[in-house]
């Protein structure tokens, strides 16, 4: 069997068993318990919460990120095994949301980490979260969710951006 065919089968299988690591930074963490528990029950889609980054497939960034938190998010993301996907939750990781002019909030997450899917809303409802996850599954099956490849390929650029944020713009050349 050719590699392409095999990877297609593997993608179809893996999309039905997504283990989610929710990095609860902002208010989005409040929307996760109803999604996980009996009312919305995400396990019927093969998704389950995972306690450690090393066994997780999806990293959920549930809200705004400060520079201090971004350092921890990057540590978590780099521990995850390929293939891995990032879903950014709510309006804060998109453009800063209501914290856009805060001194300590990074405004756009995909400058520092490759984001596969943005989920708009402040905060998104559980239906929205499930819808986004279905979308992510479709992207995985089609092979469109390739943020982790992008991160590998552009590792230097990402590191440079991260370093600029950590030093609040004062980088010595």
């Amino acid at each position, binding site marked *: 069997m050719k590699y392409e065919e095999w990877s297609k089968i593997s993608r179809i299988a893996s999309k039905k068993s997504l283990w989610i690591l929710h990095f609860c930074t902002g208010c989005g963490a409040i929307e996760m318990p109803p999604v996980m528990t009996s009312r919305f029950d995400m396990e019927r889609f093969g998704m389950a919460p995972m306690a450690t980054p090393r066994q997780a497939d999806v990293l959920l960034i549930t809200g705004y990120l400060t*520079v*201090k938190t971004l*350092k921890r998010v990057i540590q978590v993301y780099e521990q995850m095994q390929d293939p891995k996907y990032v879903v950014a939750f709510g309006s804060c990781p998109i453009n800063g949301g209501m914290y*856009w*002019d*805060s*001194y*300590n909030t*990074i*405004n*756009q997450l*995909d*400058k520092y980490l*490759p*984001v*596969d899917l943005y989920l708009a809303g402040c905060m998104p409802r559980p239906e929205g979260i499930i819808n986004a996850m279905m979308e992510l599954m479709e992207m995985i099956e089609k092979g*469109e*969710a*390739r*943020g982790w*490849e*992008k991160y590998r*390929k*552009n590792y230097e*650029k*990402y590191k440079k*951006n991260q370093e*600029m*944020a*950590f*030093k*609040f*713009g*004062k980088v010595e050349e």
Partner: protein
Amino acid sequence: MKAKEIIGRGEEVHGRLYVKVEKQEVRELIKTLKENKFQHFVMLSCIDWIDDGEFELVYHLWSYEYREHVMISTRIKREGEEMESLHDLFPQIETYEREIKEMYGVNFIGNERLTPFFLEGWPHMPPMRKDFDSKKFIKDVFESIPPVEDEDEGI
């Protein structure tokens, strides 16, 4: 109000006792209140009165016996003036002073633990000062970081 009887000064504002004092008097006042059943130090807050060139430090105390709230307010100059640390009266003051040092740049003499708290590697002026230009800062720092472009690896 019981607190007014104890310290004999201040005015009642919205059910609280508001006392304006010089910075040298704060220690004695808090000590007196502590000895008279104002055993809960609620918080220490700071206000930047940029037009007056002053910082206002407000010490909040609460008594469970009398159910009264006392605010002891003192003003120091924005530049070049320091405050005495009061962490020997209530140990939690140490942490409040640490936060105010980071966010406003007020120095507290006698506090050994004024190390960076929330902000890691912060190279600019303290961000809660009114003359800190937040929008310019965002423009210079976060907006100047370029997005990572990669045409082959579409998202």
